[in-house]
């Protein structure tokens, strides 16, 4: 079915991030929002993506955001960087979804919900780090990877899942000794994302040497399942794409439930 070669091929054929996007990121890394906006504006697809993203109801802005400069200044460095990486991710979207019943609009909704949820969590935890803020994009990245790797084997995988309670992630790991988080971390590295981002996604399964990364990993993991439990994403088949381990997050659950108003 899927083997290590398929993964290597997949990573090898990832499209490079557009040059304008790289330049915009450089300006954002030096806190120069104005130059970042001016650069981003040159790529119409990028600026259109960011405008449509920030105008989603979940961002809660009262009036329509009509230009990139306005969008960046409202978003701030962290969310602006995140939106750029989310755009990179949108370039990897498959033409046709077969494993998950997703579409572009629903995937963008997932990105937006995760971004806003993660921003809320970081504010609550008093973490002001744009590298950490961008790390959340790796969660939906793993959905795209899963779709791409399994879409030609959907029948076999479904049969396997029907006989054994295995998640896509577990099937991939058993086949290749690599899981979706390993691959997401590799993509993060290729895209020049911070080491902290890579460590955070790996900390879902293997504790990091840095205690703060482990705590953040728990919050991100729980946020991921909170979103995957929403009816649209359950219907899309995302609920069981990775295995949920309640024990991993039991110590932060009460705080999370309070923050997210879960009753």
């Amino acid at each position, binding site marked *: 079915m899927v083997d290590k070669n398929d993964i290597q091929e997949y990573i090898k054929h990832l499209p490079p991030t557009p040059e304008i996007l790289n330049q915009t990121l450089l300006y954002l890394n030096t806190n120069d929002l104005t130059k970042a906006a001016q650069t981003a504006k040159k790529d119409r697809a990028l600026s259109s993506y960011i405008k449509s993203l920030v105008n989603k109801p979940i961002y809660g802005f009262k009036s329509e955001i009509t230009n990139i400069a306005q969008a960046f200044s409202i978003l701030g460095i962290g969310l602006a960087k995140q939106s750029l990486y989310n755009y990179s991710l949108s370039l990897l979207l498959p033409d046709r979804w077969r494993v998950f019943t997703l579409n572009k609009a629903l995937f963008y909704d997932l990105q937006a919900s995760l971004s806003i949820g993660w921003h809320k969590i970081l504010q609550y935890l008093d973490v002001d780090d744009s590298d950490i803020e961008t790390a959340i994009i790796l969660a939906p990245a793993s959905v795209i990877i899963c779709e791409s790797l399994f879409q030609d084997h959907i029948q076999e995988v479904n049969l396997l899942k029907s006989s054994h309670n295995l998640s896509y992630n577990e099937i991939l790991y058993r086949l290749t000794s690599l899981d979706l988080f390993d691959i997401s971390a590799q993509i993060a590295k290729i895209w020049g994302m911070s080491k902290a981002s890579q460590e955070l996604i790996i900390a879902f399964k293997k504790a990091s040497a840095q205690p703060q990364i482990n705590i953040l990993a728990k919050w991100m993991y729980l946020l991921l399942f909170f979103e995957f439990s929403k*009816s*649209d994403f359950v219907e899309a088949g995302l*609920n069981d794409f990775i*295995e*949920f381990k309640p024990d991993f997050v039991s110590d932060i659950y009460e705080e999370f439930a309070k923050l997210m108003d*879960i009753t």
Partner: protein
Amino acid sequence: MRAVIKNNIGIFTPQGFLDGNNTQAFFTLDDIKATEHLKVEMLLVSLKKVIFFNKNGIDTFVQFLLKMRLKNHVIIGFCDYDDKKYIAINSFYQDKLTFSLFKTFEIASLFCSSFNAKTKTVLLYHEDPSQRSAMAIELFERGYNPIISQTEDDFKQKQKNDAKYDFIIEDTYLNILGQRIATKVKGNAIIYTISGFLDAEIIENFDITYHNSSLHVGFRLFIFDAYKVISINIHALRFFTKLSTSAAEYDAVICFAGMSFEKTPIKFQEELEDSGILFFDSIDIALKENQEVVKLSRSTVSKSAKRSLSRVVVQRLPEFINAVITTVEMMTNIKAVKKSANIQPITIDKHEGELLSSSIGFYGAVDGILVLVFPINLAKKSCELLIGENTDNVDDILDALAEFVNIIGGRIKTLLRDYDLDIDITLPRTYANITNLKSAVENKKGVQVDLSFENSDFIFFLTR
């Protein structure tokens, strides 16, 4: 969401958060249909991977399960929860539970006829004396040794010596209603569990198509586990005599184990014996006698041996073979090479001890038996993905091979549905001993396809 079958229990494992807004999304119409067709004793929802639920969330699952119980007479409930979840569910329903609660899947398995851990000691406690008794009776009748704690203090005290008990049951609630006749396979025998007052309803609750297909597949011994039968009336008597007569055509034997005739006229026993039904004190004794029964049946050419594959099955043969090949390829990541295809009785060149095998029957619009013969190394490799590790334990490999052939049965079912052919599949059988396999399909002509996976010879054999 689809149920995964284990120990004759269908288990759903939702993850994350369950509330009134999302739980409907877990079941599509196809999922509901697929669940209706499951042949299981229990349908459970595992809460192991659920971190939050509310009343509305649980209620959606309850309504779904109740519909399934109405249709299929299965035991329904929830399992794999902690104290907090148990208290929450009880508070939602305020002592009006219409389903069972099993603290763990293992505890649920104790109340399922296919779980084989008899003669084990079980410590149990429930604050409600009637629940304590109900559980103890059910366990005792299944051959366990239940120890009941009458008070919580006593239970806690006994729990300290947990090494004395094979299983400890707490936070469990039994609501066993509407059970249909449960089926399990033990060795070469099919065991049906019957209980209570047997009347005309048995005709409805007994899956005659499944029984007939099991005869076709090669099962020759059928034991009715009748420990819990209180009495039999004339309608049930006629049903059993008819069943025995039709079984005789296949040289098959029908037995009753543990049946007491205290409340049933003794002449009924004579009539049943006259029709060929044998009576034994226990299943174990019936199984011991089975060795002879199986030998006898093997020496006789049954009518089923002369049946040939139907035209529809032959037409779909390439797809059948493809289903097997792609599944083995998926499990092993090894490409198949087709060596030969012939119509013949099964021919196996390799020696005993080098091969393992599994088979599954299908019946309905078309019927047949699919046999797969694996070299041990390929069997291990094929099952690694299911087991999750490399193992040399033959029992584990055989269990996984049973699941493996079940997957293929599922594929064939889907494949035939595309041609408007509805079939059901039997329980899978496995053979550690190739002589037994040969006996089961001897004199049967079929399509044998020899394949090779990295020089490991693999046999696909389809017969009827």
